[in-house]
């Protein structure tokens, strides 16, 4: 494969709503506790039905690493950019904190990191790439909801999952072409 294309395939049906991923992300990426300070979240979707016929699902999510990248196009200093593998990253030194990217992101994936003095969001734990390690949220999950990998490599576990299952993306109408794929 010429270039890698990183992405995550999620099987949200396996999610326990245990929050291991959200806490792991905070330590891996030095994010302090705080109401708005998080890169990743696990939503309890609306309860369906009334007692006793009810069902509930959980939806873990984070920055979608959109191929069509609304946040990057509005960034005046190119602080938000894409890595060769298509990971959407932020050069914190260039961030002027105009917050245009925050308002542009259809997934509310960005927040102001007070300690970095810049906008921050999920990076697929890019700092782990040189060592070939999985992102923290992927690695720590008790039930392996997320599978991270090179979607250009048909042999990667992520590609295989994608090929084998029906999947969907969040907010397809925004035409962002997310790199997070949810198994139906």
């Amino acid at each position, binding site marked *: 494969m010429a270039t890698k294309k990183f992405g995550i395939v999620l099987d949200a*049906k*396996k999610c*326990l*709503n*245990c*929050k*291991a991923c*959200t*806490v*792991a992300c*905070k*330590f*891996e990426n*030095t994010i302090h*506790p*705080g*109401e708005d300070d998080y890169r990743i979240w696990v939503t309890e979707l609306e*309860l369906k*039905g*009334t*007692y*006793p016929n*009810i*069902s*509930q*699902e*959980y939806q873990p999510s984070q920055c979608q690493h959109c191929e069509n990248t609304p946040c990057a196009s509005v960034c005046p200093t190119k602080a938000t950019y894409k890595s060769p593998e298509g990971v959407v990253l932020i050069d914190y030194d260039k961030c002027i904190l105009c917050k245009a990217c925050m308002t542009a992101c259809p997934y509310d994936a960005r927040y102001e990191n007070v300690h970095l003095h810049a906008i921050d969001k999920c990076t697929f734990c890019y700092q782990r790439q040189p060592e070939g390690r999985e992102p*923290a949220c992927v*690695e*720590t*999950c*008790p*039930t*392996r909801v997320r599978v991270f990998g090179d979607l250009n490599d048909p042999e990667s576990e992520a590609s295989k999952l994608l090929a084998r299952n029906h999947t969907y993306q969040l907010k397809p109408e925004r035409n962002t072409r997310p790199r997070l794929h949810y198994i139906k």
Partner: protein
Amino acid sequence: MKLSRRKFLAASGGAFAAAVAAANLTSLKAVAESGHGDAQTGEKGEKHIASSCEMCVNKCGFYAHVVNGRIKKLNPNPRFFKSRAMLCARGNAGAEEPYNPERLKTPLVRDGERGSNKWRKISYEEAFQIVAQKLAEAKTKYENRSSVAFFSSEGLQEGSFQMLAQTYGSLNTVRHPSLCLSSTIQGWSSVYGVYPDADLANAMFVVMPGANRAEALVTPDSMDFLRYRPKGQQLVVLDPRFTNTAAKADKWYPVKPATDMAFMLAMINVIINEELYNKDFVANMTEGFDELKAHVQQYTPEWAEKECEIPADEIKWCAREFAKYAPRSVIYPGRRTSWYVDDVAFRRACAIIPALCGCWDVPGGIVPKSGVPLKNPDIMYPFYDMVEERLDVESFGEFDNNLPDDARKEAGLPTDSVAYLGEKDGSWIRFREAVLRGEPYPVKMMMVYKQNFVEAAPNRAKTLKMMEMMDFICMIDIQMSDTAFYADLVIPESTYLERWDVVHSLAGIWPIATFRQACIEPVYQTKSMFEITGGIVDEMLKIPELWDDTDEEELEYFKEDFVEAILHAPIQDYIKYQVSGFENGYEKLLKDGVIYKTDQGVYGQSAKPGYRFKTRSGKIELTNVKYPDKGLDALPVYRRARQPKDGQFRFILGRHGWNTHTGTQNNEFLWEIQKENTLWINSKEALKLGIKNGDRVVVKSSVGEQTVKAEVTEKIRPDCVFYAHGFGRVSKGMSLVYQKGASQAAILEDYIEPISGNAAMHETFVTVSKA
């Protein structure tokens, strides 16, 4: 007597020394190579150190990512197959524990009324002197070493605390199981002789009565039931509450509380009457089938439907499916089972079903736990004259277990003795009752290792009353827990990331052993329980009155073989000895954090014909052989439980995946997930009471009341209410959760399961009204 003890001791002590010497030679080299030798020196640079988690009982392995002497992150250890190489929210948040602004940093002695939160800082040496002095006072004053009670919580350092208890010689040790799982241990053991596991990674049909594996994480079950769920596996969950586990189930039966046994008995009825059971297995491996068959005739599915509100057809379906997939079918044994006053009988009923269908010790069935063989030195403590029997054994005559419907209500507060008491565990509620009565002898002093009974044990008012009766209370913990808050002396322990802990075999289908090594230097020069015990014992040895009721020679041996050889030696020596049966065991531990014989599941050890089970008959006992000796039912007998009256709700307990009991709420990274608990109340009932989501409500039982926000939900039966454990705290030293939300201990009534001595915590009825 003395001679033979000494002989045995010499043998084991010698082996201990030899093994340590041998291990030292190889390990020195290995340490130099692996670079782990500098594990304790702090300083610059990055490193990854293998150790294990202490945020709950599972002890999951991790590699601590240490940057410039500070823990940055804990990452799951890929070799830790028991947890399927994961680390949960708490395990991750553990990285904060050494730096928690509210951790205990130095020993504190009370400097005002109990509970006034006035403390004076003292040194560890002073603290050890105070403890030794107080222990001596108790011995002299009451002439009974058992007048000092030793409460402890589960953990790799609990053994160090037990060393202190045994050195002192008190028989009153009170551990956590009787606030937790002693009834399921007793129930399953009464059938199989052991408390087994369920193989969720291979089972095709799983019945989970009440266990909440999605939120109360148990390795590897919580991982397996979703991650390695075999294709086509059916999961049936019985729970009055729609837990995250119920959300994952193929069928959720909102069972009427305290009637689960009816469901199980009816399943047995169907399996036997429709001849779905495994005839060979029953004939070869079990005892008492005919009695069982006769006994369950009364328990038809139609009868059960009326009791447990699960349709008869569903019960039949479960029985047939269970038998269809046998032996890959399980009834899940569960862990915290301190539910009802007849919990052991209920667990017996659960255990009988897989036995009927031969789901024993095969993949996908019920499987006895295996362990990793470790060596543990036999320590011979001196015999003392001034010691009395445990307080909670048979001190008030036999307990009549055959409670008729009304008597169960009347005897709602059973204080009689427990039929099968864990020798070292005791029965918590029973123990407190005896202390309060002061019979048969007074207990006047408490040594507590991390057991936060003020919030963990039902009926907080009584617990506080018991504490008031104490001459002296010493607490060892890492934060100012509620129990520490009312203590006289608080000794900080190092957090698990700052200390070395002995090796522990985690028994199960996939046995693995782990330990702890210090990932960082203690941030505040704190000590481990092992060092604390060493310090206290040293001080004790300076006080002659403490040793005048034992044999001098024995005492000398004790000093030599225990105090010198173990307590005064580095704890690493102990660890080396434990793994001396493994080639390069110690080096492996340092590098991998784990040690094991195989990473495959261990099955079939006890499935061979002729195998002798640890029951009286040596077989799987469908009908228990020894119970009738104590006047207990040989077979599970269903007695209709009390149910809440109009206007009352049954208060049920539980927790969420991001907190463990009362120990983790004051960690900011977990606290921000849930800042206070809320009362779950069924939306229809809430409507009747005029309660809206978010309203503050008063929850009141006969022993206390709490005010808490209501969460109006579809996720609970109309006759139950629930809030999570660990909130509404009384310790000002836990400022994040101090008086936030509601406490369970404050409103729980103190019922007891009389066979195992387990607390019965789902027997409290409450009223709910707008605040």
